[in-house]
């Protein structure tokens, strides 16, 4: 048995994982990162559009600050998020952007003077300030009041991932590539590391660590068509789930992106619509204004996806051999814009569709895109149930997204969450000792070994590939954009049956080293459990909130459902997760539940909402007249971030104010 000891173990080498590893290493901790693939191939690279941070440099971002970003995020989440976490996030996002600039990210910059942009299908000229010249630019994204999405052309995720991985290389952080974690080592209260398998040699290793951070991304691949990379299979969530101790949060909260190309499901960035692209139906009609007259194409993602599905159901979709779709029209942006700012989109259209998006419309439809749910953590990123287990990024339910994530907030979460949680992970490693219980380690290694033995030597007859496809189809058919009780029940039943069948998987390729079939078998068994948490959570939640839309319960029901679904897996033999709920306390919210601004306001109010609103106006009225926005915020909902991140963010706007104040002083 090969044992590897370290202080801070990180599973997953995408942006979030690497950022935590860097934070650990900077504290002088021994750090090891495990990854299925080379770090720079992680799915973070696919985030094209950008990351939200309220820098407020561009003229269309003037007046932006943490408060506006916070409000957008909470509204976007349909009040499902943890507001303190959303505050921590909004506060640290500008810091992360500025830090990344020093690590090499070539953020697109503001050019002073007039600039032509497309807003609401009209060409508009905006005038950028002299003082903003060369500062980090931002573009418009759905669900935001201001232009806040910082970007590098259309390869933001790519350039961030490369800069952060380069930083990790410069710090000499080892990334063990082609290593797959298969079980967490834990004693019921504390996590001690993972059992992992080398995908090349098949060797089993135990990584023993003070802290174990899961940053393995989402679980999109439990769906047949997803914009996610094919490695986003929810194995990180399954690792936590299989402990029987750690819990997953809001697994039913699954986002569908409005514009993935048909049929392959590759994403075209929200930047297409942010920059002025339109959605059209089979008659070429721009239909979004009919449904959402105010926000139109730039309504929140869940809203646009549902409206598109509605419109297709009305028979307005374009027929194709792969089912109906709609059109995304970016031709009005002009060739130059498409070829510079949306080049990845252009490449994708050329390579996978054989069309020229500067001239042709792009066939799109809503497609699984993001997992708001994940390993439930507290505000420091640690599992409340299993000490020493941390999670960050899409893998986690840190919960700044609630039931719907805003475009540009996921990439932001990876580096901002990584920055914050990285510091808490480092604190944890410094405050705790390495506990080594070889008997415990051996127990977990043996479990994995016998699982592999059973697969390779056993008499199982089921095909891992077939079971996976069936699971993916069930999720597509019954746990999609619009959901209802009977279908969800069907999904639960069928997934349960599949889980039983998965215990009888047999392999035709008996190799113990590099064996893709073995990898598939090990994964599908875990994915099924994750899929069941999604289906069960969705079945139980009899309301509609954010991306979770129940046809049989179309109202948001704050009275009964202002809570977070927690799922755990009771025992190895179980075939269903156990659900329980964590209430969101309205009396602690800075922004009590309200109207999100889409469709009709039909939410069933929480009894505390009115009380809290009253309390808020009282608190604010008691503040001195000169209380600034920070003081007002603090009075309503104090939040904590690590000391080195507490300072206020400076903005161009503040700077001109303070300059003016200084001048005023001198005049006196």
């Amino acid at each position, binding site marked *: 048995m090969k044992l590897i000891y370290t202080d801070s173990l990180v599973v997953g080498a995408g942006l979030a994982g690497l950022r935590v590893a860097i934070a650990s290493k900077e504290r002088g901790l021994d750090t090891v990162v495990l990854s299925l693939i080379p770090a720079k*191939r992680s799915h973070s690279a696919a985030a094209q559009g950008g990351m939200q941070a309220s820098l407020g440099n561009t003229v269309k971002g003037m007046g932006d600050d943490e408060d506006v970003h916070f409000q957008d995020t909470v509204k976007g989440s349909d009040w499902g998020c943890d507001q303190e976490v959303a505050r921590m996030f909004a506060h640290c996002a500008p*810091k992360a952007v500025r830090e990344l600039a020093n*690590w090499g990210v070539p953020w697109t910059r503001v050019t002073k003077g007039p600039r032509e942009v497309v807003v609401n299908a009209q060409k508009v000229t905006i005038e950028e300030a002299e003082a903003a010249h060369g500062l980090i630019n931002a573009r418009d994204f759905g669900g935001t009041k201001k232009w806040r999405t910082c970007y590098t052309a259309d390869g933001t995720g790519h350039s961030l991932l490369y800069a952060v991985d380069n930083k990790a*290389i410069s710090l000499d952080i080892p990334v063990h590539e082609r290593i797959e974690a298969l079980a967490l080592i834990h004693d019921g209260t504390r996590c001690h590391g993972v059992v992992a398998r080398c995908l090349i040699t098949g060797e089993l290793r135990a990584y023993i660590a003070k802290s174990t951070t899961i940053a393995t991304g989402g679980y999109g691949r439990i769906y047949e068509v997803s914009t996610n990379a094919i490695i986003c299979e929810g194995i990180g969530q399954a690792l936590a789930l299989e402990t029987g101790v750690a819990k997953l949060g809001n697994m039913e909260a699954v986002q569908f992106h409005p514009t993935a190309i048909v049929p392959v499901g590759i994403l075209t960035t929200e930047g297409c619509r942010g920059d002025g692209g339109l959605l059209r139906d089979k008659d070429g009609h721009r239909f979004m204004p009919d449904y959402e007259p105010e926000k139109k194409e730039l309504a929140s993602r869940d809203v646009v996806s549902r409206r598109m599905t509605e419109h297709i159901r009305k028979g307005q979709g374009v027929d194709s051999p792969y089912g109906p779709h709609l059109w995304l029209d970016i031709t009005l942006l002009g060739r130059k814009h498409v070829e510079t700012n949306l080049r990845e989109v252009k490449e994708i259209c050329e390579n*996978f569709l*054989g069309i020229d998006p500067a001239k042709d419309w792009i066939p799109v439809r809503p497609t699984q895109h993001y997992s708001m749910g994940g390993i439930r953590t507290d505000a420091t990123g640690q599992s409340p149930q299993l000490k020493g287990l941390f999670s960050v990024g899409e893998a986690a339910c840190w919960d700044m997204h609630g039931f719907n994530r805003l475009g540009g907030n996921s990439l932001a979460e990876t580096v901002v969450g990584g920055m914050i949680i990285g510091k808490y992970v480092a604190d944890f490693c410094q405050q705790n000792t390495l506990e080594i219980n070889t008997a415990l380690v051996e127990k977990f290694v043996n479990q994995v070994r016998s699982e592999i033995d059973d697969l390779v030597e056993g008499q199982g007859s089921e095909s891992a590939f077939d079971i996976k496809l069936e699971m993916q189809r069930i999720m597509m058919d019954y746990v999609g954009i619009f959901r209802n009780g009977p279908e969800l029940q069907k999904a639960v039943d069928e997934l349960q049956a599949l889980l039983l069948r998965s215990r009888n998987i047999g392999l035709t390729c008996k190799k113990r080293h590099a064996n893709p079939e073995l990898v598939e078998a090990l994964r599908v068994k875990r994915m099924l459990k994750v899929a069941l948490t999604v289906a069960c959570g969705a079945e139980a939640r009899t309301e509609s909130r954010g991306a979770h839309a129940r046809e049989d319960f179309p109202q948001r029901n704050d009275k009964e459902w202002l809570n977070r679904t927690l799922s755990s897996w009771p025992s190895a033999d179980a075939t269903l997760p156990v659900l329980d709920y964590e209430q969101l306390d309205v009396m602690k919210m800075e922004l009590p539940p309200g109207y999100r601004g889409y469709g009709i306001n039909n939410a069933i109010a929480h009894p505390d909402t009115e009380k809290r609103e009253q309390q808020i106006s009282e608190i604010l009225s008691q503040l001195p007249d000169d209380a600034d926005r920070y003081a007002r915020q603090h009075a309503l909902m104090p939040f904590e971030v690590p000391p080195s991140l507490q300072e206020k963010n400076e903005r161009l706007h503040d700077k001109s104010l303070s300059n003016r104040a200084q001048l005023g002083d001198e005049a006196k």
Partner: protein
Amino acid sequence: MSQGRTLTFNIFRYDPQEPGDKPKMVKYQLEEAPGMTVFIALNMLREKQDPSLQFDFVCRAGICGSCAMVINGYPTLACRTLTSKYPKGEITLMPLPGFELIGDLSVNTGKFMRELAERLKLWLHPRQDEIDIHRIEAPMAPEEAAKLYELDRCVECGVCVSACATKQMRDTFVGAVGMMKIARFELDSRDARSVEDFYHVIGNQDGVFGCMTLLGCQDNCPKDLPHMQQIAYLRRKMAGALV
């Protein structure tokens, strides 16, 4: 477009870890589907015909650079190669030459790229290590940012390395990917390194002076990066440092 025709795949098979296994070409046949890519085809082959077939895909959208392989004599990204591109319906797949072979079509490009980055110190060496992240960032010329992003688009797929005869002959040669990245940091006004510093790293036979300008890199790069321009630029810059 021809639909429903039968495609013939000739695939390089070899498992270096299997005792006694020898490299060989194996023929597979598959019904073509509309819009089929080599990614889709390989997965179908693995699922239906041979579960031991090894290959690497991650994003399957031409973004991550995992799936470079040699398709009918041209190294490229398999995920975005449509099978309809081959009118004869014969497709030969070989692993990228010049990398450690993991098995079949899977090669260890990740290890290569990490070692290269460590050797050439391919990261930004900022002028100040610590910046005040709470204050307004230092401005940068918008044109410079745009230019840097152009060079930052490399996905480390390894195509330039495999397409470079110089690299194949001389293992220590840094290849286009190394030079492109050096050029990217050389152009970055935030980087503190001087021309001499860069000279020290690539002003030699393994670097810019060992390149024979065969342009396999330029002609095969799936991201159409300007290798030719950048390497020429570096060479002039380094030659300038001679005198």
